[in-house]
């Protein structure tokens, strides 16, 4: 007896019979057909609905004015995020300016995520977690190999490092390892002690979410991996949900626009660029 996949027709039938299966981590297309949406996510305007497994990654190009909600479904997600101006990806998230310009090391609602060109790539417009990190970046192969297993850290191994996943995600947008700067992470917090020591303070628990508003057209890279300071012996990272929908960029009159003098000039620079570039 030959197997059902011994012939092209048999193999085709076998492949096609898999359609309709579901997994916890998967994209839903069209996004507007996604079910079980969190409160406040407008189904009719969705442009991206995807769940990302621990150890997984996702990426997307999002229009200016899009709102992206990240949800820590089970309490152990850690969303490492990089942002690029999709029109000119050599303009990208600059974590130093993102903490220096607002005079604030800790991320939360209202925080502008700044590029190296003095513009706002995205604004944090909602945050029910308060446990985030802009300082420690993502995990490396070297650190994961020492923490989890000798072959840890590789994308095909049991403990993928965030850096490895960013290399893959970036590649899909024509970007190379040299294009991957330090990243931000959401849902696992870090605080700085008075002597400069870094203290990991973990998760806020299941169900927390963060919303980012795209202030420019963005390439968004997301790697869902344990935080580099997560001291647990096992590679612990749970599913992350991503929902994006059409919305508006921050405008004059929005409280965010003039929240601080630095923010206002950052939004002015952003609007100035978008206007000259012909972006709505």
């Amino acid at each position, binding site marked *: 007896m030959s197997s059902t996949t011994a012939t092209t027709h048999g193999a085709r039938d076998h492949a096609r019979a898999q359609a309709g299966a579901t997994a916890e981590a998967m994209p839903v297309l069209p996004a507007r057909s996604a079910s079980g949406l969190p409160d406040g996510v407008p189904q009719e305007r969705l442009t991206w609905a995807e769940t990302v497994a621990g150890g997984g990654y996702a990426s997307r190009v999002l229009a200016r004015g899009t709102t992206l909600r990240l949800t820590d479904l089970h309490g152990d997600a850690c969303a490492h995020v990089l942002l690029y101006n999709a029109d000119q990806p*050599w303009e990208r998230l*600059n*974590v*130093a*300016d993102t*903490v*220096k*310009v607002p*005079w*604030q*090391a*800790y991320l939360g609602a209202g925080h502008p995520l*700044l590029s*190296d*060109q*003095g*513009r706002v790539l995205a604004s944090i417009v909602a945050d029910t977690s308060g446990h985030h990190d802009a*300082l*420690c*970046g*993502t995990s*490396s*192969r*070297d*650190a994961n190999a020492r923490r989890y297993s000798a072959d840890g850290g590789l994308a095909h191994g049991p403990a993928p490092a965030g*850096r490895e996943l960013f290399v893959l995600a970036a590649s899909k947008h024509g970007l*190379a*390892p*040299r*294009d*991957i*700067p*330090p*990243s931000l992470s959401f849902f696992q917090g870090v605080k*700085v002690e*008075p*002597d*400069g*020591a*870094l203290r990991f303070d973990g998760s806020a628990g299941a169900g927390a979410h963060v919303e980012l508003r795209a202030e420019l057209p963005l390439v968004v890279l997301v790697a869902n991996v344990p935080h*580099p*300071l997560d001291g647990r012996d096992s590679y612990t990272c749970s599913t992350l949900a991503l929902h994006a929908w059409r919305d508006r960029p921050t405008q004059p009159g929005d409280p965010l626009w003039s929240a601080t003098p*630095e923010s206002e*000039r*950052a939004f002015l*620079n952003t609007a100035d660029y978008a206007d000259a570039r012909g972006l709505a």
Partner: protein
Amino acid sequence: MTPAEPAQEQQLGTLPDGAIVLDETVPARAPWSAVVEAGQLLSIVDLGGNQAVDCILYDAHDREQRYSAAETIAQQGSIFLTTGSVLRTFEGTPLMTVVADECGRHDTLGGACSKESNTLRYGHHTKHQHACVENFLREGAKWGLGKRDLVSNINWYMNVPVEPDGTLGIVDGLSSPGLTVTLRAERDTLVLVSNCPQVNNPCNGFDPTPVRMVVTQP
């Protein structure tokens, strides 16, 4: 008879033992770069005191491997650099180690000033001023490095505390004339420097001054 005074001007700095292979003064506001070979020591002397020295490191033979502020502070568990700090690449590989430090702490968070970020921090009237990113771009171009190769940098002698509520900022420096920090190259390392020209905050005491770079072979 009293001995004659030395003819040459006494140079400031506390240098390690060994043969001097390079001894250069970087003028105020200027860029600088050099390859420091594995095992050699680079001493950075703050000649005038409280002079921020912005610095990015690259593996001299594989410049895709470069300093990562995030990897460096995550692995050492502290935001400040001082003696014992290992300066690592994004992959965790040591590029250089701080082997002596007379200042006490150096910044990993503040990054480089740029004409663009100056417009946010101080206003658009500062856009015309020179900035560290300009130095990095111009000096990096000599080595084939471009804008995509710039990452969060080290700020030697810059003082950036973080308050309990997360407030962070560049405050008055802890350095003084002649203080020296010495780094050992763990592999051949391209050192890219901007002698910070910023005049709108206290990182240079509002008066950018020269720094001395000395490479010794122990």
